[in-house]
Each structure stands twice: as structure tokens, then as C-alpha cells.
């Protein structure tokens, strides 16, 4: 009979992404609820030393799937290796992060294993063998409670939605020489913007919209840098070519849930509000006192953002010393 929880770790250049610790922590909670153990699969190359750290988040067993061909993520190599391990371990639940990688791998695994799947899950409830997952739909305009049937159940957790919890796991390490099987996809190269904080993983986001009036976001960059946050944009700012597509927050862009979201010169179209409404604290800065964004903001400031934002940056620097 299927039992146990199996988490899939995600690494970039040999280091785990934050969402891996979130998925492993959540996997431990599910395992505790079901009264079973947590296994973490670590696909990659030369991951042995960092993989041991996963015991801190409750991993009872750590399977290192080691192969040079797994250093960089490709769908078919990863799907072949992970599906093999799932076949052998026969878990009741598979959990991973809903990143670009997780959202690519999970549906492939679900189709191969004929498994129930839910992506971008923000809350999980276990009741015996049954699992209810809560996930946003319509870009965050609605929340859906979905019930997953059969085994395994595949759950991809939305980055920043689940906490990281330390707990003791036995952490028994097993290294397997993973067979990637037949693969068609070839990794050519990658270009990473160094130091760029990913919006969906950022604790603080400073976003700019139409009120920026142009592509110079330097004052927002400065405020974000002072707080250790990332810079986002409204659809208008992206459509105008002021910011990259990857910066867009909203129903057709990224749905974010930082601790602090600062909306600068953003009036608050319904698609944008949906994409940021799960932020913990929202600050709106706009010269129009009737802007819809103020009705969704914890703190509103009416005024010229070009005066306010640099002043806020100075105040932040003062308290950070």
C-alpha cells in the first residue's frame, strides 16, 4: 500500500531554493498528520554535502539522485529519474515547489503516474487518507478548496505561501546512481541576472505603475535596495516597455504574497489587485486620492511619488542605521 510523503528538492547551481525548505517543512507536517515518514529526493550532481541539511527540516530519508545530466534541469531527464524513484518508494503524497521547474515537472509526472495534481497550493489539510488543498484561481480573485483522490497525490506549493519549520528528521542518506533514460531535450546555456531577487520569493516588493511616467525606476530600485526587496511593475508599466515582462504583477503576470507590498503610482486595476491582494501589508502611494488602490491598502499616502519615495528611502536608511 502506498504510504509516506516524498518531497522533491530543487537546486540551482548546487544550492537549494527557499521553496524547497518550504515544501519539505510542509511535507513533514503532512507526514505527521498521516503518521508516516518523509523522504526527500535530491536530483542533481554533487549534492551530497548540502543534501544532509534537509534533515533539519524533518527529512527522515534523503535520496540523492546523482548524475551529471541532472546538474541543469531538463524535463525528460528529471521526469524519468523522479518517476522511477516514486515507483520504487510508492508514496501517498508527492510534494514540491511550484516554481518554473516544479510547474514543468509536476504535470509530466501526474500524467505518467495517473496521479491527482494541484499546483500553487497555499494551504493543505489532511484528514486520514484524504487531502484538501487550497489554491488561488482567477489570479487570486478566488480561492478553491480542491480534493485530491487516489495515490500518489502531487502537490506543488506556491513559493512564499508556506513557512519554513525546523524539525528533527533521521536524515538517513542514500545515494543512487540515477538513470536518466532516453532524453530528447538538450540544455544549451543559461543566463542568470545576478543579485536579482525573484518577485514570487521576495519578502518586500516595491512596484511602479503609470504614475512613474517613464522607464526610470531608479527611485524604486533605491527604496527596494534599502529594504532588501524586489521591484515589480503594473501591466501598464510593462506594456509601455518601461519594465521587463518578468516584473509584471497581476492576473496575467505574477501573483505575489510578500510581507510588504508598496504600490507607487498604481491606480489599482482589478487584475493588479488580484495579483497582490495576498500581501501581508500593502502601502499605496498615489497623487489621486480617489485611486482604487487606497481601498485595498493598509497605509495610504496621497502625494507626489517622486518626492515621497526618496524621502521614505531616507527614513528606512535611518532606522536601519
Amino acid at each position: 500500500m502506498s504510504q509516506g510523503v516524498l518531497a522533491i528538492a530543487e537546486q540551482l547551481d548546487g544550492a537549494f531554493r527557499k521553496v524547497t525548505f518550504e515544501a519539505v517543512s510542509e511535507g513533514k507536517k503532512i507526514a505527521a498528520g498521516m503518521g508516516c515518514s518523509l523522504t526527500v529526493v535530491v536530483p542533481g550532481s554533487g549534492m551530497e554535502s548540502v543534501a544532509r541539511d534537509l534533515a533539519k527540516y524533518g527529512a527522515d530519508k534523503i535520496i540523492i539522485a546523482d548524475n551529471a545530466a541532472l546538474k541543469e534541469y531538463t524535463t525528460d531527464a528529471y521526469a524519468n529519474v523522479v518517476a522511477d524513484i516514486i515507483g520504487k518508494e510508492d508514496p501517498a503524497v508527492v510534494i514540491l515547489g511550484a516554481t518554473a521547474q516544479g510547474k514543468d515537472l509536476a504535470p509530466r509526472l501526474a500524467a505518467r503516474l495517473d496521479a491527482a495534481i494541484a499546483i500553487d497550493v497555499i494551504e493543505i489539510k489532511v484528514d486520514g487518507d484524504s487531502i484538501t488543498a487550497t489554491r488561488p484561481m482567477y489570479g487570486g480573485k478566488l480561492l478553491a478548496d480542491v480534493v485530491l483522490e487516489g495515490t500518489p497525490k502531487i502537490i506543488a506549493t506556491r513559493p512564499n505561501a508556506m513557512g519554513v519549520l525546523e524539525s528533527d528528521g533521521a536524515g538517513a542518506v542514500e545515494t543512487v546512481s540515477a538513470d536518466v533514460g532516453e532524453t530528447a531535450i538538450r540544455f544549451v546555456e543559461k543566463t542568470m541576472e545576478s543579485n536579482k531577487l525573484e518577485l514570487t520569493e521576495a519578502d518586500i516588493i516595491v512596484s511602479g505603475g503609470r504614475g512613474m511616467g517613464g522607464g526610470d525606476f531608479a527611485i524604486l530600485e533605491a527604496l527596494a535596495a534599502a529594504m532588501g526587496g524586489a521591484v515589480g511593475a503594473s501591466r501598464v508599466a510593462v506594456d509601455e516597455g518601461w519594465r521587463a515582462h518578468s516584473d509584471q504583477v497581476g492576473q496575467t503576470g505574477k501573483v505575489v504574497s510578500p510581507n510588504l507590498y508598496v504600490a507607487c503610482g498604481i491606480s489599482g486595476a482589478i487584475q493588479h489587485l488580484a495579483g497582490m491582494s495576498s500581501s501581508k501589508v500593502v502601502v499605496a502611494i498615489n497623487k489621486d486620492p480617489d485611486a482604487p488602490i487606497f481601498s485595498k491598502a493598509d497605509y495610504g499616502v496621497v502625494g507626489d511619488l517622486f518626492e515621497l519615495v526618496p524621502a521614505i528611502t531616507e527614513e528606512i536608511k535611518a532606522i536601519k542605521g
Partner: protein
Amino acid sequence: MDIVVLLKQVPATEAMIGIADDGKSIKTDDIKWVINPYDEFAVEEALKIKEEQGGTVTILSVGTDKTVEAIRTGLAMGADNGVLINDPATAGCDSLGIAKILAEALKTMPYDLIIAGQRAVDDDNYIVGGAVAEYLGIPQISLVNKEEIVDGKIRCNRTVEGGTVVLDAPLPALFTTQRGLNEPRYASLPGIMKAKKKPLDTKTLSDIGIEAPSPKVGIAALRMPPERVGGRMIEGESAQEKAALLVKALHEEAKVV
């Protein structure tokens, strides 16, 4: 090059979404239905590839009577023909079931390349593209914002957190779209006229030879997210004063900085 675009009709993103009386579906009165924005990128990219390399563009959708409108819009943009799987039995399917149906339909069609949206902006499931590729046993590359086809191979720029990965795959293959891939064209008036005469086949599940797969995922309930209410306006004489009061509140009350 025979290209198939997987298309879904969804509520326009400016729509207010309300929950129907059953608590499990949305209110559909007064909703304007459109082509899923990510599928619009897929139609546009298919047309561009066809313009460069020749071939056909077919739009494939699972939907209802009203989905004809969305497919006709794709045909008016320039696609050659449409296939609509219209069967009440699909209503109870989950994403994996829809993917299985699409894959079965694709097995009866010629294709070198399949293009799908990364997700539909209604359910936000992110499942259909990858699952269709798996059922067909072909490679998939997702979140693509640039592609090039040379010598039977496709090279894609795939967007990942904080960067871009370049990948190659042999055709036939499937890729899913990301913002920035292109600017979808508007249907021209002559395009709209021509679209009325383009072939649009409607099929039932028995035409494809598949029974509706039983769902493994079901919606138990829909809820509105916790309503955000407007909080406090920060008042002050100068930008400096407002900034100081705001940061004090963020630091001492909200404790987020």
C-alpha cells in the same frame, strides 16, 4: 510545418468573478468570454512560424457552443482550421482528463509542433501543456519567450526565476508561452470575413474514441479571499513628514521593516 494551438476560452481578466449558488462554480451571467491571453500568444507565434516556414495552423479546443466564437477569432487572426471538442461529458473532467482528451484528438491529426498557453487565467492550473506532451510522448519546453526552428529542431528561451535557460528539442515538440513572446495581432475585417468560411469541425468524445476520464481532482468549495479593507491614510505637511510617519508605522505597528 503543421502546428496545432491548444486554446481555451476564459472570462476576460477585467471581469469581477462571483461564486454561483452551488458554491463550486462561478457566476457566468454578464461575463465576457475571450481567448485565454496566453493562448493568444500561442496563436500569434503559430502564425509567425507559418508565415516564415509555410504549413498549417489548427486550433484545438475543448469547450461548449460559445467556444466557437473564440475559435473563430483565432481563425480571423489567420489560423487555417479549428477543431472543437464539444461534449457535455467533458464538464466533469479535471485538467488531466482534458489533457487526455486533447492528446487523443491530436493522435488523429498531423502535427510537427504544438503550442499551448503556460496556463489558463481562469483555473490557473498549469497542467494541460505538460500532460498533453507526456501523453503523446513528445518533449515539452514551458514558459517560452523566444523560439527558433532550424533543421527539425526547436530552440527555446525558457524563463525561470531570475533568468533565462536555452534548450533544444527535436520536433515534434510542445512548448508553452510566456509574456514577451510576441504581440498578438488583431483580427482584420477581411480576416473576420474569411474566418466564417474556414473549416471548424465539432467532435464528441465518441468521435475521438475516448470516454470522459474520471476526475481525480474536484473542487469542494470556492471562497472569496479575505477582503482587504482600506486602512489608514498618512497625513502630513510635507513629503518628509509623511515619509517619517509611514516608516514609523511600518516599523513599529506593522513590523515589516
